[in-house]
């Protein structure tokens, strides 16, 4: 094993990370002197991720970039790893740890952007219901908080957020149940990438597509289709492709001794974008090109 190894560890299996993987693949083509790995943990728990990192270090990996399921509480594990190899965070940060830098978006800002979509779409206010995978996960908490902050005083209220533990059937039936039990709901927010498609299908089945304002996160094909059709008010997308692509270059440079890529505050923010009917086609074309290439 002569080539230095760089690893990108994600928090759970999901399509979202396919884009990051595409970015890593692109980077691999440009970094022939390195061996790039893209690792999914067996399950989305911090304990398994940290064990995975320990194993990677033991197996001779030279630098790691991780999207932790629970960064706040993995600080010791991070420090343990960071003592041996350069460690970067992505997607969700642990600023108190000895990680070298964070590369990713700000979930709070993304939540604010979603709230702004809602405010624009519902000038008269409304009552929203949120749907998410893990209620306790950092990215969920930050997005929800950002959304709440943005809609404050606009007459829009986020009544409750239902969790589904990433069980798609349950994600769908949560929407069904809300439609049955809360007829006063006028807007729905899907915080995880698979939530908006479930909202779309439930609304379609109930014949309420268009009647309820939907604000989405991420770029599931169904979400984008609904945005194009105008059935969804808009979606907030991150840029995981860049995380993978830039992240690998960042680590490679760092190992070569070039530390100019790391800003003083250690935060490299890749901005999130609002996608609505006006820019959805361009965005989708870009996506296709990236995954295809």
């Amino acid at each position, binding site marked *: 094993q002569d080539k230095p190894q760089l690893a990108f560890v994600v928090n759970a299996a999901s399509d979202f990370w396919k884009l990051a993987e595409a970015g890593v693949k692109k980077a691999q083509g440009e970094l022939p002197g390195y061996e790039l790995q893209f690792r999914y943990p067996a399950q989305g728990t911090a304990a398994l991720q940290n064990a995975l990192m320990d194993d990677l270090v033991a197996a001779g990996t030279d630098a790691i970039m991780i999207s932790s399921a629970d960064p706040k509480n993995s600080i010791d594990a991070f420090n343990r790893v960071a003592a041996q190899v350069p460690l970067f965070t992505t997607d969700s940060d642990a600023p108190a740890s000895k990680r070298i830098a964070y590369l990713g978006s700000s979930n709070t800002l993304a939540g604010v952007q979603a709230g702004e979509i809602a405010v624009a779409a519902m000038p008269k206010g409304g009552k929203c219901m949120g749907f998410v995978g893990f209620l306790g996960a950092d990215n969920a908490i930050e997005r929800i908080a950002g959304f709440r902050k943005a809609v404050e005083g606009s007459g829009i209220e986020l009544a409750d957020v239902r969790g589904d533990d990433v069980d*798609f059937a349950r994600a769908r039936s949560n929407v069904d149940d809300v439609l049955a039990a809360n007829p006063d709901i006028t807007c729905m927010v899907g915080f995880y990438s698979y939530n908006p498609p479930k909202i779309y299908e439930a609304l379609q089945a109930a014949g309420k597509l268009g009647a309820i304002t939907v604000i989405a996160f991420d770029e599931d094909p169904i979400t984008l289709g609904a945005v194009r059709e105008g059935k969804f008010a808009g979606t907030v997308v991150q840029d995981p492709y860049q995380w993978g692509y830039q992240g690998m270059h960042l680590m490679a440079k760092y190992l070569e001794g070039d530390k100019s890529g790391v800003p003083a505050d250690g935060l490299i923010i890749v901005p999130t974008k609002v996608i609505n009917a006006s820019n959805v086609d361009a965005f989708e074309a870009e996506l296709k090109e990236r995954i295809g290439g």
Partner: protein
Amino acid sequence: MHKKDLGLAVLIIIVGAVVYLRNPLFLSPINLGNTANLIGLFGLFAIGQGFVIMTGGIDLSVGSMIALLGVIFVDMVGKFGVPWPVAILVVIAIGTLLGLAHGILITKLRMQPFVVTLCGLLIYRGVARGYTGEATAGFPFGAHYPALEWLTIGRSFGVPHSFYAMIIIGVVCWFLLHRSVFGRHLQAVGKNEDAARYSGIRTGFVITAAYVICAVLTAVAAVYFAMFTRSVQPSSHGNFYELYAIAAAVLGGFSLRGGEGSIIGVVLGAVLLQELQNLVNLLGIPSSLNFAVMGAVILSGVLADQQFNRYRAKRRAANAIRVLNRKGSTPRQAPATTDEIG
């Protein structure tokens, strides 16, 4: 209907009544339809699990099988354009083969069902994840398969077709388990495999058949689930569903030691589980308490049912003695005072 089933039905009605009083929308057609759909989905493979548990075995692989077959089905139909009836047949054929493999490993190679199907749980999900490379298998946006959708997620008279499917399959399975020669053999094998073999029953065949039935029903459920979620994320799709199925069967009166249980029971078990899921959303209980509520209701329900039955058995025995004492002259002493001891 057995007494056990009756107890469960009463529990379902009581829970339903309580929920209705707190939120009358519980009985709204929309909500009933949604719940019926889920009952249909979960009921399908819970019935299958019932056959396996009847043999004294267990099938831990159903959740993973639903994920693997779901991925295969969605990919065949959505990606490779295989006509959906062919895709369904392929999925059922794969299910049959997997069930056959379980059965043969258990009967011919004498492995423990728990081990075999635990390995199935690990392998099938692993294969599904490896095959898609962790990606979600989904239909392209806007893709429509009217006939398939009518069959799986359509409704007639407001009742979802998944529910009809469960009812039809349930009725067939009821005849199979409770009225057919095969069903009798299955029960005998579950209660005492040796005695069944000494009576000329092909125990290996019977047990294997149970695993095949379970896998085939699971394959059917996998198609329904895939159409319901319209996309299958291999790492999470169907997670823990084996526990649901086993719980439905056990609630419905199946004994994990084998030989006991009824189709009506397992269907009622599936109904109760879905009712409890529904209740949490309808009453606006925080999602985090979902599981706690479910566990508490199951525990108290089973407990109440059991204590009631024990009380009844005691009363009957006491009655028999009383009748006896009244008939015969007076026994030496008045033992009536000791009645409570038994």
